[in-house]
């Protein structure tokens, strides 16, 4: 009975939302600004000829910075929870000769494609995030195939991981601070440097985002960091 009531409620709610949205869609007026034209006009002066990259990393670069921060927040929480209460020993993954062979083809390709997407990003579709996703996929593939990402194991590895995670936003903020200290607006790239700066930011972002996405995957980074905090007492609250 309660279940049916719930379904009824859900149906009513979603119908209401649909109806409201439908009305809004039907009744919508002509927009008062022609933003696409402004974008097209301004892209010439931006650091990247591809309009979407220009929007993401120049016009609305602040949004992108915050977006990376959002990703980092998720990672921080994941790492904190994982370290406070490590996952139990879990099977590493599927170790299989054929899979290894396939991966030896796939992985270099993935890195290559990621690099291509990153490079292509300034002139055509692609960019930091897409490249990072492919890189992260490579990492996930490794983990699924049972490969330990030894570089991120242990205390030093964890520190390395964190350093790389922070790198992207740090470069971003540093560039912003640099422009601001140079007397310009925050993240207002000097015209000569714009392309290079954007590329540098994208490069750092790619690394960080890729590692962030990888870290959100359950088994990565490797969870041998249980012993990482020997000096810290583990008190349980509550």
């Amino acid at each position: 009975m309660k279940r049916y009531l719930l379904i009824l409620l859900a149906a009513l709610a979603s119908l209401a939302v649909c109806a409201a949205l439908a009305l809004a869609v039907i009744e919508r007026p002509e927009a008062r600004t022609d933003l696409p034209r402004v974008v097209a006009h301004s892209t010439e002066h931006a650091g990247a000829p591809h309009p979407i990259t220009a929007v993401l990393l120049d016009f609305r670069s602040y949004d992108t910075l915050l977006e990376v921060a959002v990703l980092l927040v998720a990672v921080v929480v994941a790492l904190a929870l994982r370290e406070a209460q490590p996952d139990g020993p879990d099977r590493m993954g599927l170790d299989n000769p054929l899979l290894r062979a396939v991966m030896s083809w796939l992985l270099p390709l993935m890195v290559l494609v990621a690099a291509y997407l990153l490079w292509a990003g300034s002139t055509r579709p692609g960019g930091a995030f897409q490249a990072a996703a492919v890189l992260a996929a490579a990492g996930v593939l490794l983990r699924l195939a049972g490969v330990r990402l030894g570089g991120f194991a242990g205390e030093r590895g964890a520190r390395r991981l964190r350093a790389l995670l922070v790198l992207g936003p740090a470069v971003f903020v540093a560039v912003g601070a640099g422009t601001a200290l140079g007397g310009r607006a925050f993240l207002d790239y000097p015209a000569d440097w714009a392309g290079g700066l954007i590329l540098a930011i994208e490069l750092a972002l790619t690394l960080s985002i890729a590692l962030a996405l990888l870290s959100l995957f359950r088994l990565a980074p490797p969870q041998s960091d249980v012993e990482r905090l020997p000096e810290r007492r583990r008190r349980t609250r509550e």
Partner: protein
Amino acid sequence: MTAVALFQSLLIGAGVAFFVVGSIGVLRFPDVYTRIHALTKADNLGLGLVVIGLLPGAGSVAAALKLLLIWGLALLASACAGYLVARAARRRGVEPWRRGQPRQRPERSGDPR
């Protein structure tokens, strides 16, 4: 329509047909192992024919290479997937279908809590 175009459309048509056939196969075949067949055929041949059909219109060598690369990757993926699933099925003791058995078994919900 030029001869090349005709050739292209034929190839692509055949590829698409393979896909359709593959889908139907996946839908009609009785068990996991047979369905893997349908799948890999469609992937390898269908996509291959489509790619070959598109090659003349690719415009540049890079684009053509990219198309071939896509095909290669798809081959790799489908081979790998087929192998992995079949191996897993074997190891888990999924028995192949034999003539006379019901084709599809009743569905059971296997949700974890």
